């Protein structure tokens, strides 16, 4: 009898534990938090140092703010940390008037004693511009986005006018300058935190233990496992709706899907099984047409792709429509040039190299390869919006090229090794893509194919074309939209003739979430933001309250 009553009591205790003790009429922790199943670990917590989408998803809009941002459907530039700006008539002096009510994160490793001011802006940009700056070489001294747009050559200096006014002095007028400042990469760091790290001789921590002005602050990071953010309670735009944001790092597609279906994560990046998700009433599938391009590039420094005819022949032999249908499951538009058709600068009359294996073969013979040759294709190992399955795409291309007598070997490495070896130029051809950081068309032309991008290893085709570069420079010097459009149209014609790369598709970015998650997360350019996201309180709880 005695043992029976003990058993009974323990059963009652267990049942009451399992049912949860929500009597305290508060929302449960899971209702105040969001778990996001992300596809990879960020390389750094400072988006200035990386152009990878995973890094900017995890950092830019969560931890930081930039001076200006793109706002609304019309993609106009709006104020952020700078409440207003003034540009001189020659476009070479740009003055920003800063907000006076912005506070930095308070964490276990840093407590700010002052609000955001001009010193922080100077600290941020001088770190990138000035090679003598104490922090320039911390974390390697590479600022890939800024190098690709020639930032340090463009900006002569950044001046502090007073505590809340800064002025950028440019060497020439460049129309994409403001757009570049509004990207996910131009985030503002804390000068005071930099000073603290200098004093404690641990400068490298600035990019590992981040301090920013954004809606969330870093609590905990375990490589390959999780990132935990807490809400920044004194965020200048009002605090975020959720208290905790957790990134559950799950590189495998199927494990992200399982976690989503089992409600272990609220939002999942790049989901597969679109139909299954669409069928479930408790899940939503959303997509956004982002500005991107997936392409097949050639190493123009290596034989046989140093020959324009070979590049054209290979491009003609690939059935792009079949790739779009199979790889993107028709959730993408076939690319006619590197610029998406939705961009204002896109010219409808741009010629497109079609699918023509017969002409491909004759071009190949003309180039001196009537019997074909053997080549390699480097297929990226990770999923990206612009290419959900590069290895499968490489196999389809392999089959297409076999028809014109070209044998293909498919090469794939782990992601960071893959990128490193590509910048060393070990490849003959490769499958990769580009996500735009801002809607300015220059963001497609300059970082992907210019000679300056070539120098820092971002342009993996190693193609450098004087006429093309001149056109881009002219387009940047003017603010006249129709003139710019004309220059870019000419640039597209050059690309289509020279074929350093074959644009394949402009795809949508997908995301899945539980139907109880509200608020916009995806944005057209750059990384995601959880500032607006929140969870609907469950009806059961409302009834019990």
């Amino acid at each position, binding site marked *: 009898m005695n043992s029976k009553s003990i058993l009974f009591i323990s059963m009652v205790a*267990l049942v009451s534990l399992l049912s949860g003790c929500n009597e305290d009429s508060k929302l449960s922790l899971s209702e105040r938090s969001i778990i996001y199943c992300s596809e990879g670990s960020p390389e750094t917590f400072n988006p200035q140092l990386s152009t990878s989408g995973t890094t900017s998803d995890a950092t830019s809009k969560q931890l930081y703010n930039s001076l200006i941002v793109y706002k609304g459907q019309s993609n106009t530039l709006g104020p952020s940390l700078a409440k207003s700006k003034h540009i001189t008539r020659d476009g070479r002096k740009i003055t920003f008037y800063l907000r006076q009510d912005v506070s930095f994160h308070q964490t276990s490793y840093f407590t700010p004693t002052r609000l955001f001011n001009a010193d922080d802006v100077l600290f941020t940009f001088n770190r990138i511009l000035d090679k003598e700056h104490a922090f320039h070489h911390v974390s390697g001294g590479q600022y890939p986005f800024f190098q690709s747009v020639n930032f340090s050559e463009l900006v002569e200096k950044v001046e502090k006018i007073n505590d809340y006014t800064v002025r950028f002095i440019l060497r020439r007028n460049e129309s994409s300058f403001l757009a570049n400042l509004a990207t996910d990469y131009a985030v503002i760091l804390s000068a005071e935190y930099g000073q603290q790290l200098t004093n404690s001789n641990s400068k490298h921590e600035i990019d590992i233990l981040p301090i920013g002005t954004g809606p969330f602050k870093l609590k905990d990071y375990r490589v390959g496992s999780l990132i935990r953010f807490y809400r920044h309670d004194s965020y200048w735009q009002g605090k975020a709706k959720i208290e905790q944001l957790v990134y559950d790092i799950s590189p495998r597609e199927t494990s992200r899907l399982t976690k989503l279906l089992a409600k272990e994560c609220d939002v999942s990046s790049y989901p597969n099984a679109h139909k299954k998700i669409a069928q479930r009433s408790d899940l939503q599938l959303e997509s956004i047409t982002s500005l991107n391009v997936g392409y097949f590039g050639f190493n123009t420094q290596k034989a046989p792709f140093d020959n324009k005819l070979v590049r054209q022949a290979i491009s003609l032999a690939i059935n792009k429509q079949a790739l779009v249908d199979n790889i993107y499951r028709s959730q993408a538009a076939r690319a006619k040039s590197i610029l998406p058709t939705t961009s204002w600068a896109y010219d409808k009359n741009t010629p497109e190299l079609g699918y023509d294996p017969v002409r491909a073969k004759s071009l190949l013979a003309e180039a001196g390869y009537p019997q074909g040759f053997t080549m390699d294709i480097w297929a990226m190992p990770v999923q990206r919006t612009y290419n959900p399955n590069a290895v499968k795409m490489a196999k389809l291309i392999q089959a297409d090229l076999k028809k014109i007598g070209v044998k293909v070997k498919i090469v794939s490495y782990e992601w960071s090794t893959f990128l490193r070896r590509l910048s060393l130029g070990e490849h003959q051809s490769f499958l990769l893509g580009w996500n735009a950081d801002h809607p300015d068309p220059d963001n497609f032309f300059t970082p992907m194919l210019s000679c300056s991008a070539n120098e820092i290893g971002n342009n993996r085709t190693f193609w450098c074309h004087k006429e093309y570069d001149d056109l881009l420079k002219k387009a940047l010097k003017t603010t006249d939209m129709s003139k710019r459009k004309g220059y870019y149209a000419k640039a597209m014609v050059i690309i289509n003739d020279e074929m350093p790369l074959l644009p394949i598709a402009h795809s949508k970015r997908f995301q899945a979430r539980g139907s109880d998650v509200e608020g916009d997360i995806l944005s057209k350019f750059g990384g995601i933001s959880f500032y607006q996201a929140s969870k609907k309180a469950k009806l059961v709880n409302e009834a019990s309250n």
Partner: protein
Amino acid sequence: MLTFTLRRFSLFIFTMLVLTLLSFSLSFLFPGDTVINHSGQIHATPTELVELNKVYKMDENIFSQYNAYLSHILQGDLGQSMASQSPISDEIIELLPATIELSLVALLIAMLIGIPLGFIAAIRHNKTSDNAILSFAMIGYSIPVFWLGLLAIHTFSINLGWLPSAGKISLLFEIDFVTGIQFIDILLSDSPYKWQAFSNASAHIILPACVIALAPATIFIRLSRAAMIEVLAAPYIRAARAKGLSFNQIIFRHAIRNALIKIIRHVGLQFANLVTIAMVTEVIFSWPGIGRWLIESIYQRDYTAIQSGLLVLSCFIFLVHILTDFIYAALNPLARGNNHGS
């Protein structure tokens, strides 16, 4: 009891010696430099390498090499993981409790389900319910655990959405590491969400523990059935029946106690079996335990972690065996006279 203890102790010493000999020889059998396999220091500079060779006495004969290796192990230095470059002993201390916790819960489930079912089968010997229980045991024993695990995730996590499929607690809860046994750590923590964390952790452990419990439970069914049948046929039961004791009195006062004694010994044996099953299950349910860690080390060719992990795991299982032997001996004086170790 003293001779019994001494005998077990000497058995433990010798088994451990054989095990260390095995893990020591693994360093020679694995590809790569022996001293690097011992220490796991793959990024050692030439000077550090000279130092390591000296510490592990690599230029002396094989016996002093083994001696040096043994003294490292006795000091708790199991080398560094080649993959993460952190001390293996730290990693094991962090992960082993999670496996023990999962295995204990699974063992409890297996016993709570298996033993009563076995008793029922024995009492209803050769009747339909006996046959039904036996066929269930047979089927349960034959199902491969990796398949069962996936099936359980598919049914209960994906289709029904009742239980989580991965990890030991939702990532939302921050529980400080104290003992490593999560339920205890949760109770010790001062988080305002303690009880939510507790119910969340319970939900996480149900699926993997049940999957692990199935095979041992079926063994318990058969063991307890056989033990009970034997006890029920014993003369003292017949005597009790002749004295006019009721059925309940016979079963609860006499039969169950005597049958349980016979089973307890096997609990220890089953625990070893259970840990093996748990290792596979940990991979399926992403349970952060030693099994998943060991299998990942194999994938990553982390030789130091493999050899030290095997050593620790086998040492742990052996200790459990000895422990159950003691419990058995304490409960059953007859067993103490047994001259041979099991």
